[in-house]
Protein backbone atom coordinates (compact mmCIF):
# COMPACT_ATOMS: atom_id res chain seq x y z
CA UNK A 1 0.00 0.00 0.00
CA UNK A 2 0.97 3.61 -0.39
CA UNK A 3 2.66 3.97 2.97
CA UNK A 4 5.30 1.37 2.32
CA UNK A 5 8.66 2.87 1.41
CA UNK A 6 10.44 1.13 -1.42
CA UNK A 7 13.35 -0.68 0.08
CA UNK A 8 15.00 -3.79 -1.24
CA UNK A 9 13.61 -6.51 -3.49
CA UNK A 10 11.75 -9.11 -1.45
CA UNK A 11 12.79 -12.09 -3.53
CA UNK A 12 16.43 -12.12 -2.63
CA UNK A 13 18.60 -14.99 -1.45
CA UNK A 14 20.76 -12.49 0.46
CA UNK A 15 17.94 -10.53 2.11
CA UNK A 16 17.99 -12.25 5.48
CA UNK A 17 21.75 -12.14 5.75
CA UNK A 18 21.87 -8.50 4.67
CA UNK A 19 19.27 -7.67 7.32
CA UNK A 20 21.29 -9.51 9.97
CA UNK A 21 24.47 -7.62 9.07
CA UNK A 22 22.54 -4.34 8.86
CA UNK A 23 21.30 -4.89 12.41
CA UNK A 24 24.90 -5.16 13.61
CA UNK A 25 25.92 -2.13 11.54
CA UNK A 26 23.04 -0.06 12.94
CA UNK A 27 23.99 -0.92 16.49
CA UNK A 28 27.48 0.57 16.10
CA UNK A 29 26.77 3.25 13.49
CA UNK A 30 26.78 6.21 15.87
CA UNK A 31 29.93 5.05 17.62
CA UNK A 32 31.72 4.42 14.31
CA UNK A 33 30.74 7.91 13.18
CA UNK A 34 31.68 9.62 16.44
CA UNK A 35 35.08 7.96 16.77
CA UNK A 36 35.88 7.82 13.04
CA UNK A 37 36.85 4.20 13.48
CA UNK A 38 36.27 1.27 11.11
CA UNK A 39 32.95 -0.59 11.45
CA UNK A 40 34.77 -3.69 12.69
CA UNK A 41 31.71 -5.47 14.04
CA UNK A 42 29.84 -5.05 10.76
CA UNK A 43 32.89 -6.13 8.74
CA UNK A 44 33.12 -9.26 10.89
CA UNK A 45 29.40 -9.87 10.32
CA UNK A 46 29.78 -9.38 6.54
CA UNK A 47 32.53 -11.98 6.62
CA UNK A 48 30.55 -14.37 8.83
CA UNK A 49 27.40 -14.18 6.68
CA UNK A 50 29.30 -14.54 3.41
CA UNK A 51 28.51 -11.06 2.08
CA UNK A 52 32.16 -10.21 1.38
CA UNK A 53 32.33 -13.38 -0.72
CA UNK A 54 28.88 -12.97 -2.30
CA UNK A 55 30.07 -12.17 -5.82
CA UNK A 56 32.66 -14.94 -6.13
CA UNK A 57 31.57 -17.01 -9.17
CA UNK A 58 30.22 -20.50 -8.65
CA UNK A 59 33.13 -22.00 -10.60
CA UNK A 60 35.39 -20.62 -7.88
CA UNK A 61 33.18 -22.02 -5.13
CA UNK A 62 31.18 -18.84 -4.50
CA UNK A 63 27.55 -17.77 -4.83
CA UNK A 64 27.97 -15.67 -7.96
CA UNK A 65 25.91 -12.67 -6.83
CA UNK A 66 24.91 -10.34 -9.64
CA UNK A 67 25.49 -6.59 -9.38
CA UNK A 68 21.72 -6.24 -8.93
CA UNK A 69 21.95 -8.46 -5.87
CA UNK A 70 24.99 -6.59 -4.56
CA UNK A 71 23.08 -3.35 -5.12
CA UNK A 72 20.22 -4.49 -2.88
CA UNK A 73 22.68 -5.54 -0.16
CA UNK A 74 24.56 -2.22 -0.40
CA UNK A 75 21.32 -0.28 0.06
CA UNK A 76 20.29 -2.35 3.06
CA UNK A 77 23.70 -1.78 4.68
CA UNK A 78 23.67 1.92 3.74
CA UNK A 79 20.33 2.41 5.48
CA UNK A 80 21.91 1.18 8.70
CA UNK A 81 25.45 2.61 8.50
CA UNK A 82 26.75 4.38 5.41
CA UNK A 83 30.39 3.64 6.29
CA UNK A 84 29.64 -0.09 6.38
CA UNK A 85 27.81 0.19 3.07
CA UNK A 86 30.76 1.98 1.48
CA UNK A 87 33.25 -0.64 2.72
CA UNK A 88 31.05 -3.32 1.14
CA UNK A 89 30.70 -1.33 -2.09
CA UNK A 90 34.41 -0.50 -2.45
CA UNK A 91 35.39 -4.12 -1.71
CA UNK A 92 33.04 -5.52 -4.36
CA UNK A 93 34.23 -3.02 -6.99
CA UNK A 94 37.74 -4.42 -6.55
CA UNK A 95 37.14 -8.13 -6.13
CA UNK A 96 35.00 -8.41 -9.24
CA UNK A 97 38.10 -7.45 -11.22
CA UNK A 98 39.83 -10.60 -9.94
CA UNK A 99 37.90 -13.15 -11.96
CA UNK A 100 36.97 -10.80 -14.78
CA UNK A 101 40.51 -9.51 -15.47
CA UNK A 102 42.96 -11.36 -13.26
CA UNK A 103 43.81 -14.31 -15.48
CA UNK A 104 44.84 -17.66 -14.03
CA UNK A 105 48.17 -16.94 -12.36
CA UNK A 106 48.68 -18.60 -8.98
CA UNK A 107 48.79 -15.23 -7.20
CA UNK A 108 45.39 -14.29 -8.61
CA UNK A 109 43.75 -17.66 -8.02
CA UNK A 110 44.83 -17.86 -4.39
CA UNK A 111 43.46 -14.33 -3.86
CA UNK A 112 40.10 -15.42 -5.31
CA UNK A 113 40.16 -18.32 -2.85
CA UNK A 114 40.95 -15.93 -0.01
CA UNK A 115 38.02 -13.69 -0.99
CA UNK A 116 35.76 -16.74 -1.15
CA UNK A 117 36.85 -17.46 2.42
CA UNK A 118 36.04 -13.94 3.60
CA UNK A 119 39.05 -11.74 2.85
CA UNK A 120 38.43 -7.99 2.69
CA UNK A 121 40.01 -6.05 -0.18
CA UNK A 122 40.90 -2.33 -0.14
CA UNK A 123 42.35 -0.26 -2.97
CA UNK A 124 45.07 2.31 -3.60
CA UNK A 125 44.18 3.89 -6.92
CA UNK A 126 44.98 7.56 -6.36
CA UNK A 127 48.40 9.00 -5.80
CA UNK A 128 49.95 12.10 -4.40
CA UNK A 129 51.01 14.29 -7.31
CA UNK A 130 48.28 13.20 -9.76
CA UNK A 131 45.35 14.44 -7.69
CA UNK A 132 42.37 12.14 -7.59
CA UNK A 133 42.83 10.84 -11.11
CA UNK A 134 42.76 7.06 -10.79
CA UNK A 135 43.72 6.65 -14.44
CA UNK A 136 47.24 8.03 -14.06
CA UNK A 137 50.11 6.84 -11.89
CA UNK A 138 53.55 8.15 -11.00
CA UNK A 139 54.82 5.08 -9.17
CA UNK A 140 55.84 2.05 -11.19
CA UNK A 141 56.35 -1.67 -10.83
CA UNK A 142 60.09 -2.39 -10.67
CA UNK A 143 61.87 -5.69 -11.18
CA UNK A 144 64.26 -6.79 -8.45
CA UNK A 145 67.52 -8.63 -9.10
CA UNK A 146 66.08 -11.93 -7.89
CA UNK A 147 63.12 -11.95 -10.29
CA UNK A 148 60.53 -10.46 -7.97
CA UNK A 149 58.77 -7.09 -8.22
CA UNK A 150 58.57 -4.14 -5.89
CA UNK A 151 56.50 -1.01 -5.63
CA UNK A 152 56.27 2.06 -3.44
CA UNK A 153 53.13 4.18 -3.65
CA UNK A 154 52.32 7.41 -1.83
CA UNK A 155 48.55 7.10 -1.63
CA UNK A 156 46.57 10.07 -0.26
CA UNK A 157 43.69 7.68 0.45
CA UNK A 158 43.44 3.99 1.23
CA UNK A 159 40.05 3.37 2.81
CA UNK A 160 39.88 0.86 5.71
CA UNK A 161 43.51 -0.13 5.06
CA UNK A 162 43.98 -1.38 8.62
CA UNK A 163 41.11 -3.86 8.25
CA UNK A 164 41.95 -5.20 4.80
CA UNK A 165 43.55 -8.55 3.99
CA UNK A 166 44.77 -7.23 0.64
CA UNK A 167 45.14 -3.90 -1.15
CA UNK A 168 44.83 -3.65 -4.93
CA UNK A 169 47.28 -1.02 -6.17
CA UNK A 170 47.60 0.78 -9.49
CA UNK A 171 51.04 1.60 -10.85
CA UNK A 172 52.77 2.21 -14.17
CA UNK A 173 53.64 -1.02 -15.95
CA UNK A 174 57.39 -0.35 -15.59
CA UNK A 175 59.67 2.64 -14.84
CA UNK A 176 59.65 3.71 -18.51
CA UNK A 177 55.90 3.54 -19.08
CA UNK A 178 53.74 6.66 -19.50
CA UNK A 179 51.45 7.70 -16.63
CA UNK A 180 48.36 6.17 -18.23
CA UNK A 181 49.91 2.74 -18.91
CA UNK A 182 48.82 1.18 -15.65
CA UNK A 183 48.66 -2.28 -14.17
CA UNK A 184 46.83 -3.51 -11.10
CA UNK A 185 48.84 -5.35 -8.44
CA UNK A 186 47.60 -7.48 -5.56
CA UNK A 187 49.34 -6.67 -2.27
CA UNK A 188 48.58 -9.13 0.51
CA UNK A 189 49.12 -7.88 4.04
CA UNK A 190 52.00 -10.31 4.57
CA UNK A 191 53.96 -8.72 1.71
CA UNK A 192 53.47 -5.02 2.32
CA UNK A 193 54.32 -2.31 4.81
CA UNK A 194 52.00 0.67 5.40
CA UNK A 195 53.17 3.98 6.88
CA UNK A 196 50.40 6.41 7.70
CA UNK A 197 50.79 9.92 6.28
CA UNK A 198 47.46 11.57 7.05
CA UNK A 199 44.37 11.14 9.20
CA UNK A 200 40.78 10.92 8.00
CA UNK A 201 38.86 13.33 10.22
CA UNK A 202 35.99 14.39 8.01
CA UNK A 203 32.44 15.68 8.10
CA UNK A 204 30.90 12.35 7.10
CA UNK A 205 31.60 8.76 6.08
CA UNK A 206 34.04 8.88 8.96
CA UNK A 207 34.04 5.13 9.47
CA UNK A 208 35.59 4.50 6.05
CA UNK A 209 38.87 5.63 7.67
CA UNK A 210 40.27 6.79 4.35
CA UNK A 211 43.66 7.73 5.74
CA UNK A 212 46.74 8.47 3.65
CA UNK A 213 49.46 5.81 3.49
CA UNK A 214 52.78 5.08 1.89
CA UNK A 215 52.59 1.50 0.72
CA UNK A 216 55.75 -0.55 0.21
CA UNK A 217 55.52 -4.02 -1.23
CA UNK A 218 57.74 -6.70 -2.64
CA UNK A 219 55.98 -9.64 -4.20
CA UNK A 220 55.85 -12.02 -7.13
CA UNK A 221 54.92 -11.18 -10.69
CA UNK A 222 51.93 -13.54 -10.65
CA UNK A 223 50.16 -11.00 -8.43
CA UNK A 224 49.83 -8.61 -11.38
CA UNK A 225 46.43 -8.69 -13.12
CA UNK A 226 46.39 -10.07 -16.66
CA UNK A 227 44.50 -7.11 -18.20
CA UNK A 228 45.78 -3.56 -18.15
CA UNK A 229 44.07 -1.13 -15.79
CA UNK A 230 42.43 0.85 -18.60
CA UNK A 231 40.31 -2.22 -19.40
CA UNK A 232 39.79 -3.17 -15.76
CA UNK A 233 38.61 0.32 -14.91
CA UNK A 234 36.29 0.79 -17.88
CA UNK A 235 34.76 -2.68 -17.86
CA UNK A 236 34.49 -3.41 -14.16
CA UNK A 237 35.87 -1.20 -11.40
CA UNK A 238 34.29 2.07 -12.51
CA UNK A 239 30.80 0.87 -13.52
CA UNK A 240 30.46 -1.56 -10.59
CA UNK A 241 31.75 0.99 -8.08
CA UNK A 242 29.41 3.69 -9.35
CA UNK A 243 26.39 1.41 -9.13
CA UNK A 244 27.25 0.17 -5.65
CA UNK A 245 28.19 3.59 -4.24
CA UNK A 246 24.91 4.95 -5.55
CA UNK A 247 23.16 1.97 -3.93
CA UNK A 248 24.62 2.97 -0.57
CA UNK A 249 23.55 6.58 -1.09
CA UNK A 250 20.07 5.31 -1.89
CA UNK A 251 20.16 3.63 1.52
CA UNK A 252 21.09 6.92 3.20
CA UNK A 253 18.24 8.68 1.40
CA UNK A 254 15.78 5.90 2.27
CA UNK A 255 16.72 6.00 5.93
CA UNK A 256 16.29 9.79 6.14
CA UNK A 257 12.95 9.45 4.34
CA UNK A 258 11.80 6.84 6.83
CA UNK A 259 12.43 9.31 9.63
CA UNK A 260 10.47 11.96 7.73
CA UNK A 261 7.59 9.54 7.38
CA UNK A 262 7.66 8.66 11.06
CA UNK A 263 7.43 12.37 11.87
CA UNK A 264 4.51 12.98 9.54
CA UNK A 265 2.71 9.89 10.79
CA UNK A 266 3.00 11.25 14.30
CA UNK A 267 1.38 14.49 13.16
CA UNK A 268 -1.34 12.54 11.39
CA UNK A 269 -2.18 10.63 14.56
CA UNK A 270 -2.84 13.92 16.33
CA UNK A 271 -5.71 14.74 13.96
CA UNK A 272 -6.87 11.55 12.32
CA UNK A 273 -8.89 12.17 9.18
CA UNK A 274 -7.08 15.41 8.37
CA UNK A 275 -4.04 14.93 6.15
CA UNK A 276 -1.24 17.02 7.72
CA UNK A 277 0.30 19.65 5.42
CA UNK A 278 3.70 17.98 5.73
CA UNK A 279 2.26 14.86 4.10
CA UNK A 280 2.41 16.71 0.78
CA UNK A 281 6.14 17.32 1.31
CA UNK A 282 6.51 13.66 2.20
CA UNK A 283 4.73 12.63 -0.99
CA UNK A 284 7.10 14.86 -2.97
CA UNK A 285 10.06 13.32 -1.18
CA UNK A 286 8.92 9.85 -2.15
CA UNK A 287 8.80 10.93 -5.81
CA UNK A 288 12.48 11.84 -5.61
CA UNK A 289 13.36 8.71 -3.67
CA UNK A 290 11.56 6.45 -6.13
CA UNK A 291 13.32 8.12 -9.06
CA UNK A 292 16.67 7.57 -7.35
CA UNK A 293 15.84 3.94 -6.57
CA UNK A 294 14.72 3.31 -10.14
CA UNK A 295 17.87 4.82 -11.65
CA UNK A 296 20.15 2.86 -9.32
CA UNK A 297 18.46 -0.48 -9.85
CA UNK A 298 18.19 0.05 -13.59
CA UNK A 299 21.92 0.79 -13.80
CA UNK A 300 22.62 -2.41 -11.86
CA UNK A 301 20.46 -4.42 -14.27
CA UNK A 302 22.13 -2.75 -17.23
CA UNK A 303 25.53 -3.84 -15.99
CA UNK A 304 24.31 -7.40 -15.44
CA UNK A 305 22.86 -7.47 -18.95
CA UNK A 306 26.11 -6.24 -20.54
CA UNK A 307 28.56 -7.77 -18.05
CA UNK A 308 30.08 -10.17 -20.60
CA UNK A 309 30.28 -7.72 -23.48
CA UNK A 310 33.56 -5.76 -23.23
CA UNK A 311 32.71 -3.78 -26.39
CA UNK A 312 29.61 -2.28 -24.80
CA UNK A 313 31.26 -1.70 -21.43
CA UNK A 314 34.21 0.04 -23.07
CA UNK A 315 31.97 2.29 -25.21
CA UNK A 316 31.84 6.00 -24.49
CA UNK A 317 28.04 5.87 -24.20
CA UNK A 318 28.35 3.35 -21.39
CA UNK A 319 31.06 5.41 -19.70
CA UNK A 320 28.83 8.47 -19.83
CA UNK A 321 25.92 6.48 -18.38
CA UNK A 322 28.06 5.12 -15.54
CA UNK A 323 29.26 8.63 -14.69
CA UNK A 324 25.74 10.00 -15.00
CA UNK A 325 24.51 7.57 -12.37
CA UNK A 326 27.26 8.60 -9.94
CA UNK A 327 26.82 12.32 -10.53
CA UNK A 328 23.03 12.24 -10.52
CA UNK A 329 22.72 10.01 -7.47
CA UNK A 330 25.23 12.03 -5.46
CA UNK A 331 23.30 15.23 -6.16
CA UNK A 332 19.95 13.62 -5.39
CA UNK A 333 20.99 12.08 -2.09
CA UNK A 334 21.91 15.42 -0.52
CA UNK A 335 18.70 16.91 -1.88
CA UNK A 336 16.51 14.12 -0.49
CA UNK A 337 18.19 14.13 2.89
CA UNK A 338 17.87 17.93 3.11
CA UNK A 339 14.17 17.73 2.29
CA UNK A 340 13.72 14.98 4.89
CA UNK A 341 15.40 17.23 7.46
CA UNK A 342 12.93 20.04 6.70
CA UNK A 343 10.01 17.66 7.16
CA UNK A 344 11.24 16.25 10.46
CA UNK A 345 12.09 19.72 11.76
CA UNK A 346 13.90 20.33 15.02
CA UNK A 347 14.09 16.66 16.05
CA UNK A 348 15.87 16.00 12.77
CA UNK A 349 18.22 18.91 13.32
CA UNK A 350 19.27 17.41 16.66
CA UNK A 351 22.81 16.04 16.53
CA UNK A 352 21.66 12.69 17.91
CA UNK A 353 18.49 10.85 18.85
CA UNK A 354 16.09 8.56 17.01
CA UNK A 355 14.89 11.28 14.60
CA UNK A 356 18.25 12.95 13.94
CA UNK A 357 19.15 13.46 10.27
CA UNK A 358 22.61 14.79 11.14
CA UNK A 359 24.67 11.73 10.23
CA UNK A 360 22.65 11.20 7.05
CA UNK A 361 23.31 14.76 5.90
CA UNK A 362 27.02 14.64 6.67
CA UNK A 363 27.42 11.23 5.03
CA UNK A 364 25.39 12.28 1.99
CA UNK A 365 27.74 15.15 1.19
CA UNK A 366 30.62 12.70 0.85
CA UNK A 367 28.95 11.35 -2.29
CA UNK A 368 29.79 14.35 -4.46
CA UNK A 369 33.12 15.14 -2.81
CA UNK A 370 34.98 11.90 -2.09
CA UNK A 371 35.14 11.19 -5.79
CA UNK A 372 34.77 14.61 -7.34
CA UNK A 373 31.78 15.14 -9.61
CA UNK A 374 33.74 17.86 -11.39
CA UNK A 375 36.49 15.41 -12.29
CA UNK A 376 33.93 13.05 -13.80
CA UNK A 377 32.29 15.90 -15.66
CA UNK A 378 35.66 16.89 -17.05
CA UNK A 379 36.10 13.35 -18.36
CA UNK A 380 32.56 13.47 -19.71
CA UNK A 381 33.13 16.81 -21.46
CA UNK A 382 35.31 15.25 -24.17
CA UNK A 383 33.03 12.25 -24.62
CA UNK A 384 29.96 14.48 -24.78
CA UNK A 385 31.19 16.03 -28.02
CA UNK A 386 30.76 12.72 -29.81
CA UNK A 387 28.34 10.64 -27.77
CA UNK A 388 24.73 10.93 -26.66
CA UNK A 389 22.95 9.21 -23.81
CA UNK A 390 21.49 5.70 -23.84
CA UNK A 391 17.75 6.22 -24.31
Amino acid sequence: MTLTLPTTPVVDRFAERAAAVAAVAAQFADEVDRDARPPREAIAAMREYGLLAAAVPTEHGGEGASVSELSAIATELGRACAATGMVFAMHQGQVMALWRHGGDGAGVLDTIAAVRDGALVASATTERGVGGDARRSTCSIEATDDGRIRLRKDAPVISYATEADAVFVTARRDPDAPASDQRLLICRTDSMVLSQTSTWDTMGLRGTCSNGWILDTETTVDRVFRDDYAAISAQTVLPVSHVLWASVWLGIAASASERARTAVRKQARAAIGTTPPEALRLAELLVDLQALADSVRHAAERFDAEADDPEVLASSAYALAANALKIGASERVTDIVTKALRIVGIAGYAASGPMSIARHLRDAHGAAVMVSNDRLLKNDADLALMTGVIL
Partner: protein
Amino acid sequence: MDQEPQHSSTTATLLDPTIEQAVRRALADHGRLTVDAQDVASIADLYALGLSSHATVNVMLAVESELDVEFPDSVLNRSTFATVESIVAAAELAS
Protein backbone atom coordinates in the same frame (compact mmCIF):
# COMPACT_ATOMS: atom_id res chain seq x y z
CA MET B 1 -19.85 -20.84 24.96
CA ASP B 2 -22.53 -18.34 24.30
CA GLN B 3 -20.44 -15.19 23.98
CA GLU B 4 -18.86 -14.08 20.71
CA PRO B 5 -19.51 -17.32 18.84
CA GLN B 6 -17.57 -16.04 15.83
CA HIS B 7 -14.31 -16.62 17.73
CA SER B 8 -14.97 -20.30 18.11
CA SER B 9 -15.16 -20.65 14.36
CA THR B 10 -11.54 -19.59 13.95
CA THR B 11 -8.66 -21.96 14.27
CA ALA B 12 -6.41 -19.12 15.34
CA THR B 13 -5.56 -17.80 18.76
CA LEU B 14 -7.79 -15.95 21.16
CA LEU B 15 -7.44 -12.24 20.46
CA ASP B 16 -5.97 -9.91 23.05
CA PRO B 17 -9.10 -8.12 24.30
CA THR B 18 -7.42 -4.72 24.76
CA ILE B 19 -6.00 -4.72 21.26
CA GLU B 20 -9.20 -6.09 19.76
CA GLN B 21 -11.25 -3.32 21.39
CA ALA B 22 -8.82 -0.68 20.08
CA VAL B 23 -9.09 -2.13 16.58
CA ARG B 24 -12.90 -2.26 16.70
CA ARG B 25 -13.09 1.32 17.98
CA ALA B 26 -10.73 2.46 15.23
CA LEU B 27 -12.89 0.69 12.65
CA ALA B 28 -16.03 2.25 14.13
CA ASP B 29 -14.56 5.76 14.15
CA HIS B 30 -12.66 5.69 10.85
CA GLY B 31 -13.44 2.52 8.88
CA ARG B 32 -16.68 3.74 7.28
CA LEU B 33 -17.99 0.20 7.30
CA THR B 34 -21.52 -0.60 6.20
CA VAL B 35 -22.05 -2.51 9.45
CA ASP B 36 -21.38 -1.92 13.14
CA ALA B 37 -17.68 -2.55 13.76
CA GLN B 38 -18.42 -4.03 17.18
CA ASP B 39 -20.47 -6.82 15.62
CA VAL B 40 -18.15 -7.74 12.74
CA ALA B 41 -16.86 -11.30 12.87
CA SER B 42 -13.13 -11.26 13.51
CA ILE B 43 -12.44 -13.12 10.28
CA ALA B 44 -14.94 -11.23 8.10
CA ASP B 45 -13.53 -9.48 5.00
CA LEU B 46 -13.51 -5.79 5.92
CA TYR B 47 -12.98 -4.67 2.33
CA ALA B 48 -16.26 -6.43 1.43
CA LEU B 49 -17.86 -4.48 4.27
CA GLY B 50 -16.85 -1.11 2.85
CA LEU B 51 -13.31 -0.49 4.06
CA SER B 52 -11.41 1.63 1.52
CA SER B 53 -7.65 2.04 1.28
CA HIS B 54 -7.97 5.69 2.33
CA ALA B 55 -9.96 4.69 5.39
CA THR B 56 -7.31 2.04 6.10
CA VAL B 57 -4.74 4.77 6.67
CA ASN B 58 -6.93 6.38 9.33
CA VAL B 59 -7.68 3.01 10.95
CA MET B 60 -3.94 2.38 11.13
CA LEU B 61 -3.28 5.81 12.66
CA ALA B 62 -6.08 5.35 15.21
CA VAL B 63 -4.81 1.95 16.31
CA GLU B 64 -1.26 3.32 16.56
CA SER B 65 -2.48 6.30 18.52
CA GLU B 66 -4.62 4.31 20.97
CA LEU B 67 -2.04 1.60 21.62
CA ASP B 68 1.00 3.86 21.31
CA VAL B 69 2.66 1.58 18.76
CA GLU B 70 3.89 1.94 15.19
CA PHE B 71 3.18 -0.71 12.59
CA PRO B 72 6.44 -1.88 10.99
CA ASP B 73 6.76 -1.57 7.20
CA SER B 74 6.69 -5.33 6.84
CA VAL B 75 3.02 -5.53 7.88
CA LEU B 76 1.80 -2.50 5.94
CA ASN B 77 0.03 -4.27 3.15
CA ARG B 78 -3.53 -4.81 2.05
CA SER B 79 -3.97 -8.22 3.65
CA THR B 80 -3.06 -6.90 7.10
CA PHE B 81 -6.18 -4.76 7.15
CA ALA B 82 -8.48 -7.40 5.65
CA THR B 83 -9.89 -8.69 8.96
CA VAL B 84 -10.14 -7.68 12.61
CA GLU B 85 -8.01 -10.67 13.44
CA SER B 86 -5.19 -9.74 11.07
CA ILE B 87 -5.12 -6.13 12.27
CA VAL B 88 -4.88 -7.37 15.86
CA ALA B 89 -2.06 -9.73 14.90
CA ALA B 90 -0.17 -6.86 13.23
CA ALA B 91 -0.69 -4.61 16.24
CA GLU B 92 0.70 -7.33 18.48
CA LEU B 93 3.78 -7.45 16.26
CA ALA B 94 4.10 -3.69 16.50
CA SER B 95 3.87 -3.51 20.27
